[in-house]
């Protein structure tokens, strides 16, 4: 009897253990992955095709979407880092934050995860893209696929034609054209209310006018660096910078640059071009179809902002390649799973499942093509006021999580291992690009100059903000006509006393001259 009781008890315990084990497997805890993206506005990310395809592929993962608006990223990132509670997958500015994130062990090195579960990320990269996420010999971030190389000098061809002018080549010719744009009423409204060119609050986004002097502010990067005399040097303190600023000062004094643009934010700056008031533009050719279409919609029938070679100056010519300051970081806690998820978004399966919604500038149509591949709007459809492109673009832009396949030039896919994917994505982009974008991208390829300081250094964290503020102050003051010698000398003294030499020493130590 005792034996029977013992046997029954053992059987009961065994079956219970078995049942509980089985039950445990069924109710296995999902891995929770927090994803922080940086959209321009928040849309329906949770219900998007993008997120749905992730959820289908990874039923064992619970995705939590934590958007940080692009406009607030400069405030949110430092606070997020200070909290020490970083999302598992985090988009951010690699140039700015990599040293702090690494120093604080807030992000994981990715070399092992990429080798094990990140093969598609590595295989479908463009040339040198991974380098933008490396620090201290390790891979810490995956730079976004799109490349901010594509900046070009643009000019209103219709204005040139109307005034009987040739396309300018030299800085002097640009000045003559700017003078005509300012004084000869190119918009034909009978008022003298147009300008040669414009600033965007400071001198940062008019780099083509600086490269003519062999220097550049470098857009919003941590300076523009070049090798001079066998050393890494910062353009911000070269004597040619003063010459370039004096040139702009003389333009400004003559009234060839929109007078209020030194205080314009992005919206005001963009608006004056759309309002047919400014003739020379330095920006991304990808935005050209939108600008020309908007001008035409506003009644400027022949509007033709078109890319040309940047002005040729005494020390050369060029445009700025920002490289890739934006990328994705991974917190240490769930790095393997997070990289595995991220890797999936670099595959053809994901591209098809998400119907192409991993793009930077363009939006795919809701319906896929007969071959199952996404179909993008053509340049003509984008420009057509009656198409639903703009609505669709906003819907897609605000509901995507990140941008694995976003390219601005078909040539960016040349190294992708998946040739089928590369061919299709390239073809789609060829269709989307109008002739002005194609022409602009070719010029950007020709003239783009890249800073030799591709990654940040630790001293940036302590000194860079002050130096950047002072540089912009100095540049604005010289342009607006203050005593250039005094302002320049003060700036050089400030640079030398406030971390400039320390940053230079670290750059030369960490990024050797090749």
């Amino acid at each position, binding site marked *: 009897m005792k034996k029977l009781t013992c046997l029954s008890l053992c059987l009961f315990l065994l079956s219970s253990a078995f049942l509980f084990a089985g039950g445990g497997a069924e109710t296995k805890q999902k891995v929770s992955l927090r994803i922080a993206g940086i959209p321009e506005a928040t849309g329906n990310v949770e219900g998007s095709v993008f997120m749905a395809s992730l959820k289908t592929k990874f039923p064992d993962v619970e995705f939590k979407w934590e958007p940080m608006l692009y406009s607030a990223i400069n405030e949110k990132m*430092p*606070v997020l880092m200070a909290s020490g509670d970083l999302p598992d997958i985090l988009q951010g500015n690699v140039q700015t934050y990599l040293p702090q*994130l690494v120093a*604080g062990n807030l992000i994981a090195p990715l070399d092992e995860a990429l080798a094990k579960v990140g093969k598609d990320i590595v295989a479908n990269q463009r040339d040198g893209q991974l380098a933008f996420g490396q620090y201290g010999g390790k891979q810490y971030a995956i730079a976004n696929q799109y490349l901010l190389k594509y900046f070009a000098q643009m000019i209103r061809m219709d204005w040139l034609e109307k005034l009987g002018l040739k396309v300018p080549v030299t800085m002097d010719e640009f000045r003559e054209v700017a003078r005509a744009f300012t004084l000869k009423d190119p918009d034909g409204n009978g008022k003298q*209310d147009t300008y040669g060119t414009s600033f965007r609050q400071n001198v940062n986004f008019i780099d083509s006018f600086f490269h003519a002097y062999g220097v550049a502010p470098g857009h919003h990067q941590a300076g523009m660096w070049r090798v001079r005399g066998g050393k890494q040097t910062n353009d911000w303190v070269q004597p040619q910078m003063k010459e370039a600023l004096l040139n702009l000062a003389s333009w400004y004094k003559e009234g060839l640059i929109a007078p*209020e643009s*030194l*205080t314009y934010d992005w919206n005001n700056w963009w608006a004056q071009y759309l309002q047919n008031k400014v003739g020379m533009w330095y920006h991304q050719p990808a935005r050209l179809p939108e600008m020309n279409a908007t001008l035409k919609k506003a009644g400027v029938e022949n509007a033709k902002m078109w890319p040309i070679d940047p002005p040729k100056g005494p020390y050369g010519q060029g445009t700025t390649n920002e490289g890739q300051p934006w990328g994705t970081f991974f917190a240490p806690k769930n790095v393997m799973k997070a990289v595995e998820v991220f890797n999936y978004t670099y595959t053809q399966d994901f591209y098809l499942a998400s119907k192409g919604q991993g793009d930077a500038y363009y939006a795919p149509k809701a319906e896929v093509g007969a071959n199952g591949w996404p179909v993008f709007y053509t340049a003509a459809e984008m420009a057509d006021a009656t198409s639903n492109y703009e609505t669709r673009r906003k819907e897609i832009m605000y509901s995507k999580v990140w941008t694995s396949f976003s390219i601005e030039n078909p040539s960016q896919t040349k190294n992708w291992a998946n040739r089928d994917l590369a061919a299709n994505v390239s073809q789609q982009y060829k269709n989307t690009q109008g002739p002005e974008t194609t022409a602009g991208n070719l010029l950007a390829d020709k003239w783009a100059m890249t800073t030799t300081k591709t990654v940040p250094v630790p001293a940036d964290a302590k000194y860079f903000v002050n130096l950047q503020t002072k540089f912009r102050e100095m540049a*604005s003051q010289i342009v607006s006509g203050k005593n250039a010698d005094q302002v320049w000398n003060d700036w050089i003294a400030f640079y030398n006393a406030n971390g400039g030499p320390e940053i230079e020493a670290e750059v030369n130590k960490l990024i050797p001259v090749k």
Partner: protein
Amino acid sequence: MTEKWAAFTRQVRKNRLLFLMATAVLVWYAVFRYVPYWWNIIAFKDFQWGLGFQNSPWIGLGNFRALFRDPEFYKVLRNTLVISGLKLAVSFPFPILLAILLNEVFHAAFRKTVQTVIFIPFFISWVIYASILSAILSPSSGMLNFLISSLGGKPIYFLASEAWFRAILVISDLLKNSGYYTVIYLAALAGVDEEVYEAAICDGANLFQRIRHITLPGIAPVITILFILKLGQILTVDFEQVYILYNPMVYSVGDVIDTFNYRQGIQGGRFSYTTALGLFNSTIGFIMVLSSNWVLQKLTDNGLW
């Protein structure tokens, strides 16, 4: 003690709704005003990402030394003091004057209309207000420059002018906020007994004598309190106002402690350094409140406590 406690609980039961409402305010103060005090400790630490608040190393007064060695600190301190001083000199007495003038207006409809018109700008956010200002001050299309040009003058780029920027800050502050303070002074004036004025008139006091001997003493406690509070904020210039209106052209005269703190701390991530600056700022404010309260107590018999 037990009796006091019983009396207190009786009060709570009797006025539970009032206590409930007060609790919400107290909780707000505790969470947003007192709990953050604890984090002032990082002013004495080298706060490092990842190590966090607890584990970052102590560096004593290192952040304060760095602050006092930073030439930018002296620039923003000077700008802050000048702008605050100008605001105190202009924006502080103006609402008092306005309230006194309005108090003397007997036409009620006119008084209320003026009161409403000057109060409305207080409710407009600085973002909207700055857009209106930019439009008015625009060198190419602004109303003010149109007037200057019509009179034969040369347009002025006000928002980018070092000579004008501080004046714009003071005047825009005056126009936006003086209505609010005027209402406070008018409320204080409402408490002055009408019979005192009538008696003064019977005694032959003229308008200026009534203002000097009745109106001003009547609102003196409120003036004193607001003055002490303003002095306590001497190193705090309206961040929103400056941040929205300034630009690199006027950093040299418009960059203040709050904007500097924002760039260094929030954008630059130098939390320890900017906490040290914040602590310095608060300490000066505290000293100003204590000392001005003491001085005003001696001089006028009015004060915060």
